């Protein structure tokens, strides 16, 4: 063995270590890959060796290679081997490799569970720490479930270093195993007030992370966080808390009101920019939540905006960036305060820093008005030209479109201008957003009827110059606009001035190089164009012209028939046949135009994107129901599906079958418009006000100035939008003059014509009338659309699982899974005055669940009320001027923790509890009857449980629960029973009598022990007149009946017939219990039999061991940890070798003989606790090695401890 070790270390000297590997890679720059594959081969050899040091070295090198992008998952098993090395040096190499390469798909990960558990309970804090760190990176649902309890225990570890890591990792555990959140939450909350700032910060961190996802569940913690915020000086903690408040305020406006003042104070006082910034951010969040009807907070807004302006003007680019970021939040609710800083923001658009420009762009979105839209967009267009990077340019492009199209084109006064902007944007090289522009073109052309003529002319120009757009591959993205152009030209072909020309443009051979979906649209719209041309020609009586067009189609369509794209091919061949047919008819001089146009009769209406989803399920329709099953009611079933189908038909206006439907639709549309007009929440598209404008006769009616715009602007390829800007200015100027004139004439009538607007236009906005008669058609929605906003929720959101009500008391079923077959239960402190707790390791029966469920239901209600009251109270109080008085610190903590431990019951109180339980049960049932409606927040799972419970409860008598859940003795497991042992030790014996005794202390008397002596008659004589005389010492004396002297014996109050034994109890008074005591004594008695009586004596030595002064007292792990932390305990330890007994039994022995109780046990390590009658705390840490056991003790008295350990050593030596 030793030789092997030596050999191993010699081998290792020749192995490459990490440094050699790195050096080697650097020296092999040319053939790096080859060199590395060589190294990997070497590593594979090293991993095959037994020497752990060699393996660790190999794994360390693998970690480096992983960073370079090499997959090292093949070495997962070796990594686990290194993780389980006993030396910290190797262990952490193993854990590092695991944290870098393990993930949920690593199959060997399940092998780590026990190793990690062992490391978590390691006596070395760094072993534990390294395990926690590693686990945080690769925790899986299985690991989380199996280790949750161990980690939770570590949250109360004595070392803050471990505590903070354990607290942090809990977040990962919650994510992977959401069931652990509720049981662990009370302790997590406790850690918010941990004495160590690091632990506190970790707890804040975790709770903030949790609350960010599901803020409403953490609202009840607001008072606690408020306290922390006003008391903490740690900026990290403050930032986190303030961020958290930012997430909470939208849910509770009153909280916001309370926060404003302390936050404002912080803003004024802090010197840390990071903190200042977060304060401003949260104040903004508060203001947003208060935005309705709180006028007196304008000072706060001003303060924020002013601070932000300082940030934006700062030379530090980071502050500038953040300032803009925060500004955009204010913008949403208080646009006016931001708009006054327009100069600053426009200035930022010219910044050299792209991040800052992007942020400034965001702000622009909210700053446009009817008045400045053109100006701002013009500025952006110049940026578009200048922008070098495509990302920024794309961003600009989307921003321009966003800005213009926002709130249903609210700010656009001139759609011709907008179309020309869109056309200009198509000239961008290499943009990815062709489809965006196309979508806008389609949307505008469809919804703004007045603009169609202009749009069509522009689009036909685009189609004509299609070669410019689609010429090079890099411009691929932009050819999407041809899709829109083709469709618009086809659909609104009646507006085309030279349809024939456009038709030819669309049939050019070059078109076949376009993407398939665009070609398909081309083909389809070519027919539309063709139809309208036919119509024109026939009406004009130009039969030849019509035939020429048909011929053109027949000539050109085959190029599409050959397309590789199925859609194009199919459409083209279909249409080709149709056209050929038409050609035949034309040859016979049959008029066909009418029929061809009928193909495309009717109008396409825009349909809202969500329309399909919003179609309400008709009343009475059950989609899960059988369609065919019951024959009897087939009549009524038949009716319904048809109705559904019918309705859907109507929603497709394209194939409108009859006139009647048309009318019906018109009627419905009218009705809907009516409804929308009456609905104050319906965001109206701007047409309505404008329409009303014209409807109201008189003053406000401004004749729409149809300036000869469209005439000169048809020339394609020129940036035209600028001219619109000029024209627009002129137009506005004229309008203004006109208006001013009118205003002077009639001032009073002005106000009557006020319009309602969905947003707040500035005054100047109202003055601007649109250039065209604009009718923005609203997108169609199905009738009775469901007004649901559920669309946005993603059911796969991992954080959704953590949306758990934390204020509800804990149910038994929610306890963290505990390792089976071992007594590792940790107990949490319930209430201080519950002295003894027995733990049930068995899972609670369903009956019990139901029991608790009822209780919980009832209590939940109370609790909710209580909590609400508390929070209400806290929120309703005016904000405290100083941080000191924060009333009602944590609501419902007490109740919560009481309910946390419902299973552990005091043995002697079992009966009582049971009775109470039954009462509760009964009450619970009453409650059930009274309020049959389930609570809103109740989880479905619970409901199920409850129903299950109900079913079962009838079969099971109420008492059966006790029998099922038998309590398990401390330290004594169920299955591995020790041979029965007696606590009575032999005192003395002779042929007549055998004396055994047991010494018991009691907590009531701090200096008394009771000695129970069992006397057994072994002879055939009757023993009588028994007397016990004990020689007192200074320290220990026997309590004798009053009046008797020290030398008198004390009579035994019974006689013993042959074969009978009985017990007598004597009280001894002990002064000091730190040392063991031996008292000499004599039992004198008369043995009487048939032959006569003899006087007999038996000497004995009464041994008061230190253990006998200990009283088994249970201790909770957290209290235990606190005790150890307190630091006023002295320490000592022993080690015993050659132990063969199982750890389980060993613990049981210690518990039995030395009156200890197990606090916690993890693997081969256990902490134990006991207390002396005089109140000394004794804490033990028992660890089992392979053949040895070491016991570390801590006690408030060192002599007592060393004596106890000596005694224990003796006990253990016998094992």
């Amino acid at each position, binding site marked *: 063995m030793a030789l092997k070790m030596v050999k191993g270390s010699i081998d290792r000297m020749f192995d490459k270590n990490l*440094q050699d590997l790195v050096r080697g890679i650097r020296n092999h720059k040319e053939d790096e890959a080859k060199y590395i594959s060589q190294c990997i081969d070497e590593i594979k050899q090293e991993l095959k060796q037994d020497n752990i040091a060699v393996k660790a070295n190999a794994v360390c090198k693998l*970690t480096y290679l992983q960073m370079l992008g090499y997959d090292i998952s093949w070495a997962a098993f070796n990594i686990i081997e290194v993780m389980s090395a006993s030396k910290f*040096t190797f262990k952490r190499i193993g854990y590092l490799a695991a944290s870098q390469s393990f993930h949920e798909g690593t199959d060997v990960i399940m092998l780590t569970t026990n190793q990690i558990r062992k490391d978590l309970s390691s006596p070395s804090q*760094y072993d534990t720490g*390294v395990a926690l760190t590693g686990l945080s990176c690769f925790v899986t649902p299985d690991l989380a479930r199996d280790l949750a309890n161990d980690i939770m225990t570590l949250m109360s570890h004595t070392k803050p270093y471990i505590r903070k890591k354990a607290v*942090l990792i809990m977040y990962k555990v919650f994510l992977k195993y959401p069931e652990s959140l509720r049981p662990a939450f009370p302790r997590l909350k406790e850690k918010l007030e941990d004495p160590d700032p690091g632990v506190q910060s970790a707890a804040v961190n975790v709770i903030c992370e949790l609350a960010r996802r599901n803020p409403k569940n953490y609202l009840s913690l607001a008072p606690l966080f408020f306290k922390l915020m006003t008391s903490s000086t740690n900026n990290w903690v403050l930032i986190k808390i303030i961020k958290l408040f930012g997430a909470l305020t939208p849910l509770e406006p009153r909280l916001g009101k309370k926060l404003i003042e302390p936050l404002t104070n912080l803003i004024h006082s802090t010197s840390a920019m990071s903190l200042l910034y977060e304060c401003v951010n949260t104040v903004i969040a508060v203001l947003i939540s208060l935005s309705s009807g709180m006028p007196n907070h304008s000072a706060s807004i001003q303060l924020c905006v002013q601070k932000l302006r300082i940030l934006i003007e700062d030379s530090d680019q980071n502050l500038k960036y953040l300032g803009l970021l925060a500004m955009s939040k204010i913008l949403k609710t208080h646009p006016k305060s931001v708009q006054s800083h327009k100069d600053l923001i426009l200035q930022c658009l010219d910044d050299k820093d792209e*991040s*800052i420009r992007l942020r400034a762009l965001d702000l622009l979105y909210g700053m446009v008005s009817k008045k400045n839209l053109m100006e701002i967009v013009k500025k952006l267009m110049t940026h578009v030209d200048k922008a070098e990077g495509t990302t920024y340019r794309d961003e600009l492009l989307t921003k321009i479109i966003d800005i213009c199209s926002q709130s249903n084109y609210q700010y656009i006064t001139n759609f011709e201008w907008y179309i020309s902007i869109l056309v200009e944007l198509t000239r961008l090289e290499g943009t990815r957003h062709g489809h965006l522009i196309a979508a806008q073109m389609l949307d505008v052309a469809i919804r703004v009827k007045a603009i169609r003529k202009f749009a069509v002319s522009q689009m036909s120009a685009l189609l004509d110059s299609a070669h410019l757009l689609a010429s090079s591959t890099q411009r691929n993205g932009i050819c999407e606009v041809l899709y829109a152009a083709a469709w618009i030209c086809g659909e609104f072909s009646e507006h085309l001035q030279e349809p024939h020309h456009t038709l030819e443009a669309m049939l050019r051979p070059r078109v076949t190089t376009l993407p398939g979906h665009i070609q398909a649209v081309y083909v389809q719209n070519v027919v539309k164009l063709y139809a309208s041309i036919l119509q024109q020609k026939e009406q004009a009586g130009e039969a030849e012209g019509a035939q020429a067009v048909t011929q053109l189609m027949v000539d050109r369509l085959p190029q599409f028939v050959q397309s590789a794209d199925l859609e194009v091919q199919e459409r083209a061949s279909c249409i080709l046949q149709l056209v050929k047919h038409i050609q035949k008819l034309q040859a016979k001089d049959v008029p066909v135009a009418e029929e061809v146009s009928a193909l495309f009769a009717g109008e396409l209406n825009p349909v809202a994107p969500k329309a399909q989803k919003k179609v309400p399920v008709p009343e009475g329709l059950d989609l899960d129901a059988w369609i065919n099953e019951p024959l009897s009611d087939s009549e009524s079933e038949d009716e319904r599906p048809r109705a559904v189908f019918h309705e859907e038909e109507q929603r497709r206006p394209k194939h409108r079958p009859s006139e009647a439907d048309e009318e019906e639709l018109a009627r419905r549309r009218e009705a809907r418009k009516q409804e929308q007009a009456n609905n104050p929440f319906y965001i109206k598209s701007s047409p309505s006000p404008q329409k009303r404008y014209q409807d109201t006769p008189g003053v406000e009616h401004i004749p729409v100035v149809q300036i000869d715009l469209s005439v000169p602007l048809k020339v394609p390829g020129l940036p035209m939008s600028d001219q619109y800007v000029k024209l627009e200015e002129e137009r506005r100027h004229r309008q203004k003059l006109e208006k001013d004139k009118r205003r002077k004439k009639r001032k009073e009538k002005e106000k009557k014509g006020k319009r309602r607007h969905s947003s707040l236009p500035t005054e100047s906005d109202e003055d601007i009338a649109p250039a065209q008669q604009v009718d923005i058609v609203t997108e169609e929605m199905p009738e009775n659309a469901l007004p649901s906003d559920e669309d946005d929720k993603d059911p796969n959101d991992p954080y959704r699982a953590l949306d758990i009500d934390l204020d509800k008391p804990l149910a038994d079923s929610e306890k963290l899974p505990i390792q089976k077959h071992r007594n590792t239960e940790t107990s949490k402190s319930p209430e201080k005055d519950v002295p003894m707790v027995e733990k049930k390791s068995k899972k609670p029966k369903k009956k019990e669940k139901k029991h608790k469920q009822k209780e919980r239901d009832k209590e939940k209600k109370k609790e909710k009320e209580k909590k609400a009251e508390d929070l209400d109270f806290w929120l309703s109080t005016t904000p405290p001027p100083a941080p000191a008085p924060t009333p009602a610190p944590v609501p419902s903590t007490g109740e919560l923790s009481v309910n946390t431990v419902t299973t552990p019951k005091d043995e002697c109180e079992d009966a009582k509890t049971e009775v109470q339980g039954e009462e509760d049960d009964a009450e619970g049932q009453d409650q059930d009857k009274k309020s049959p409606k389930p609570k809103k927040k109740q989880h479905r799972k619970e409901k199920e449980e409850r129903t299950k419970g109900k079913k079962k409860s009838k079969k099971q008598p109420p008492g059966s629960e006790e029998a099922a859940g038998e309590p398990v003795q401390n330290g004594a497991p169920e299955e591995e029973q020790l041979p029965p042992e007696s606590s009575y030790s032999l005192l003395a014996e002779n042929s007549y009598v055998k004396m055994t005794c047991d010494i018991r202390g009691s907590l009531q008397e701090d200096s008394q022990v009771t000695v129970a002596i069992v006397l057994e008659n072994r002879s055939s004589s009757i023993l009588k007149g028994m007397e016990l005389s004990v020689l007192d010492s200074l320290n220990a004396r026997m309590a004798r009946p009053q009046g008797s002297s020290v030398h008198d014996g004390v009579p035994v109050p019974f006689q013993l017939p042959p074969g009978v034994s009985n017990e007598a109890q004597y009280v001894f008074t002990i002064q000091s219990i730190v040392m063991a005591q031996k008292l000499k004594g004599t039992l004198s008695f008369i043995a009487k039999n048939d032959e006569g009586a003899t006087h007999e004596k038996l000497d004995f030595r009464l041994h008061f061991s230190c253990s006998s002064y200990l009283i088994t007292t249970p201790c909770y792990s957290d209290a235990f940890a606190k005790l150890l932390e307190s630091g006023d305990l002295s320490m000592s330890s022993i080690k015993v070798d050659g132990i063969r007994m199982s750890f389980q039994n060993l613990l049981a022995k210690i518990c039995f003989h030395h009156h200890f109780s197990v606090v916690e046990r993890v693997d081969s390590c256990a902490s134990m606790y006991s207390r002396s009658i005089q109140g000394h705390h004794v804490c033990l840490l028992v660890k089992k090695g392979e053949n040895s056991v070491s016991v570390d003790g801590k006690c408030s008295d060192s002599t007592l401890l060393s004596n106890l350990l000596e005694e224990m050593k003796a006990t253990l030596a016998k094992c």
Partner: protein
Amino acid sequence: MIQAILVFNNHGKPRLVRFYQRFPEEIQQQIVRETFHLVLKRDDNICNFLEGGSLIGGSDYKLIYRHYATLYFVFCVDSSESELGILDLIQVFVETLDKCFENVCELDLIFHMDKVHYILQEVVMGGMVLETNMNEIVAQIEAQNRLEKSEGQVLG
């Protein structure tokens, strides 16, 4: 939450790659490359925040980086982290490295990647900030180094 911590040099060579979310190795390399190209373009005197690392997360994520001599330290974080706070954290991390390696330079990171990881583990754990107090961090690292040394002696 911190999603990833990347350290690479001016040529994009990775010196430390720490993801707190699982990505296959190739994707990790791709992210490093992309991030490198994103930060490389940026002057030293512009802001240290960057949006648009399209590979990690989405719009909620930001790249926060600092450039020291030949090395870039890049943290990819979501909106729950304070931007300025993370900048400070990078500074703490670098100062800790400086203390532990005594005048840290790129070579230290190249040859002692494992140690850099151990130091990082005391600052950030599982994507969450563990400790920001440099003295505390250094103390824990030194204690672990001592422990390692004592084990080395036993080994002979």
